[in-house]
């Protein structure tokens, strides 16, 4: 599964578990308007680390926090690089 597909799948699973209505995951969707809260993002990042084997937030240098869904996917794709 591609990095993007893995991320999309985790967003959907966690939204279901947290009983939150997920907005359509377009690249320009603002993360905070996706329907998920901080705890949901925390769970997504933890599970993605298990699935993909890395956590891009835990890099040596401070990463710029993603604002849109597209930023979020790119952050992972670039780290997978």
């Amino acid at each position: 599964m591609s990095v993007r597909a893995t991320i999309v799948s985790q967003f959907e699973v966690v939204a279901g578990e947290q009983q939150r209505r997920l907005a359509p995951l377009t690249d320009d969707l603002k993360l905070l308007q996706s329907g998920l809260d901080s705890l949901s993002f925390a769970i997504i990042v933890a599970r993605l680390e298990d699935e993909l084997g890395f956590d891009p937030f835990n890099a040596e240098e401070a990463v710029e926090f993603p604002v849109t869904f597209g930023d979020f996917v790119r952050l992972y794709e670039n780290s997978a690089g």
Partner: protein
Amino acid sequence: MWLWGAMCADGQVPAGAFHGSTTVVRLAALTGASSLDGRLEELRGRTVLIATKDQLTAALALIELDGVARRIVLCPPDLAAAYFPGVIETAGADAWVRDDAVPEENGAGLGVEVKAQPALVATSVNRQRSHETEWILLTSGTTGAPKLVLHTLGTLTSVILYQQARRPAASNAPVWSTFYDIRRYGGLQIFLRAALRGGSLVLSDPKESITDFLARASAAGITHISGTPSHWRRALMSGATATIAPVYVRLSGEIADQAILDNLKLAYPNSGVAHAFASTEAGVAFEVGDGLAGFPATLVGAAGGAVDLKVADGTLHIRSGGNALRYLGEQFAPIRGADGFVDTGDRVDLREGRYHFMGRAGGVINVGGLKVHPEEVEAVINAIPWVRMSLVKARRNPITGAVVTAEVVLADETDVAGERPQGAELTREIIEACRRGLPAHKVPAMVRIVPSLEVSAAGKLVRPSA
């Protein structure tokens, strides 16, 4: 000292305003108006539960009741109905202030009920101090039931007053804001910083988006703002941090790592960015403004300040006038040790002249500023018939500092024939069981089925030290 008296120092009426998400209250109006349905005098000398959903209503009740009530018990907005009877009994409450969003049944047995609202109603009020009011804060205990922590206005403000006495008041009064709820220690400190000087405060609202909150804070002209690292990460993710231009940005309630400090310095290059350490029991320990994670080792053992720090058995200990006095209830050990220090339970490690926080001793997990006791989560998991035992731990997380994870050992299949789900259903059912019995931040983010867990010679689960 009492709060209204301090707000009216030198005979001035307070100049500030408190901003809720829908209502703004000018503090000066409290001289001839009240949010307590004209019934303030009925609460004089009583032990009063403040249980409102709305923060502004709670803030006004605190201002009105300090010096009037014998004791005020500050209930967090998410206090579960099941815990009310225990809190009422332990505190000896005989009255309460609630709003429409809190069910009447929660206050069963309380003689006096006052329905409060964030809007003030003109009435004659006798703002006279008659009591040295005790302030009771709630903090989470290992069983999930809250522990009641006894403070006074004196203990809660000791570090604030020490600092204010040493820093000249700014010519323009600060306008404070906080992402925190003021019913928790970190938020209450901000409430008091604002209120003591009759200043202004912009309160958050869980129903409001972060973008809207920051826009409202900006419109109110905020100069000082505080939140946990998790709050600030969320603010950075909103893309709306530029909405405000504070002179002072504060982090507390969780470990501030270098990444979040760097990110905030980038977002607010002209602001002072400081991280503070405090706990409900130990009070405020320090504030560090040098942009680096951790705190200088020179603070430990330093004499002459408002707060004494020491490191013993690997954890930070605090002794100051800001320490809580004790827990209410017979069953708890004293908060302060024989030498007057409070063990925060936060483990620190000395590296190159700085102490760095390493997480909690005793395994308490901090998820976005909210405490989780592993035992409480394990109890829910262990109640599932086909589970033998479980171990709940923290896992580091860049969004909320930590998330909860669980390792679970299943009971022998022969003992639970037919009941036990299979495959992925197993972990899903465990998470579902936790979701039914626990608030969201305590539900494990991931569950791993393991063949066994290490048990010590004393028969206890071996818990990770970090």
